């Protein structure tokens, strides 16, 4: 059901954890299936220098979270905002159709984290 790449990110998720001194935090959830993702970013000179996630959800939700942290790390905020759900799915060699909407929360959580950072007036 899942691609090898997705299983790798599920089994060995990158950048898991909390970040107490985060510059921005974004949370995104799907009330239907319960999947919930919390994303923390550390920003220096408009660049994401560190990123961490916590996720409640299925294999796809966890792999999506892991993948978006890899994709966003090192990017400028404007570049990071361009990452789409489809980009994340493609990077994982695809998601099963029924997981495309419920578990693909990464791009939205990242956008919210960036908005949160900007709201804080940094």
């Amino acid at each position, binding site marked *: 059901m899942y691609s090898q790449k997705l*299983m790798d990110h*599920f*089994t060995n*998720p990158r950048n*898991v*954890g*909390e970040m107490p001194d985060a510059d921005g935090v974004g*949370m*995104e*959830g*799907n*009330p*239907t*299936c*319960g*999947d*919930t*993702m*919390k994303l923390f970013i550390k920003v220096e000179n408009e660049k994401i220098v560190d990123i961490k*996630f*916590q*996720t*409640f*959800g*299925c*294999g796809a*939700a*966890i792999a999506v979270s892991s993948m978006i942290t890899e994709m966003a790390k090192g990017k400028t905020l404007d570049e990071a905002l361009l990452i789409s759900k489809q980009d994340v799915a493609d990077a994982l060699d695809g998601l099963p159709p*029924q997981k495309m909407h*419920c*578990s693909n929360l990464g791009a939205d959580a990242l956008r919210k984290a960036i908005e949160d950072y900007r709201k804080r007036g940094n």
Partner: protein
Amino acid sequence: MKRLYFDHVATNPLLPEVFEVMEPYFKGEFGNPLSMYDLGFTAKQGIDKAREQVGALINAKAAEIIFTSSGAEANNFAVKGLAMSRQNDGNHVIISKAEHHSVLNTARSLEKQGFVVTYLPLDKYGLVDPAAVKGAINKDTVLISITHANSEVGTIEPIQEISEIAREHKITFHADGVATVGNMEVDVKALGVDALSIAAHQFYGPKGAGALYLRAGQRILPLIYGGIQENGRRAGTENVPAIVGMGKAAELTKEKLPERMAHVKTLRDRCIEGLSKVEKVHLTGHRTLRLPGHASFVVEFIEGEGMLLMLLSKSIYAASGSACTSKALKASPTLASMGIPTSLTHGSIVFSFGIGNEMEDVESLLTEFPAIVGKLRAMSPFAKEGWRPEDMKTEES
């Protein structure tokens, strides 16, 4: 890695002795049981014998067994065929929130044909209250269909009490016995049911074979019309090898049931004892009124599919009723009806044991499981703060 298969409610492996008696019917004995020559006679004899064997397993007469293609077909046949056969008496059907989809969705289909269906709620153990059955009966009630046991939480329903109520009110009573027949003693006379569904693969028989027990004298309308097979009640050339296999599996089950039950019960009790000690892991269903090989839980703060995938990486096979594992992404109506909050139903996990499992296999599970729960909780935003997904408000919702 040794495969630790703990998903016997999904299906069971075919016993070699069963395959052995099926094999000739795939090869030389290919005749149609209706044919008037030797090949036909042999096939018919195979089916007749199987009918005796399946009947004997549930204390029914051979003539009361109608072979079907599956437990689901038996359930469709019973719910539709029994309700339709009494259309002149009324249009009300009672089922429960513990039913398998093959009963639930068939009842829903009856609603589109003018029937009114009552869906009885469950208590926190997953039990249907016989008093609630009684309370739901009205002058139009023609059929009650309640599962003998629910395969998600393993709870065994009070079928005998419900059948007495049904009889008093002259209402036809069907029980879905797919989860129970072959896994515990089932005596249709003692239960007092008019009809009971059976699936062969639940007791180490082949897939593609099921049966409906129909009490002698009970009317039913066919689901499949055609020839005179199964006394005109279920048309279609018989799946002879599967039926023969079902018969053999029933015979072996009757012989070995006490031994099998004792074996899986020991494994189940060890599993429940061990996993209940893991923090924030809760048993679902009833502690004692449950299927002998069935242990089901909800695990707080994490989700079922993630658990299944991690268990699989340790070669452990289990099941979950979480929304994410269902293609429809919907939470189980059974768990919801038991009052288990959605946040917990996401973390549902079911282990069901069979004759191929050993105590050391269960011990391996007890060793691996806490680590898997720990790993997923370390990733969960809820583990530390105790948030629940439904507390989460998103902009979209």
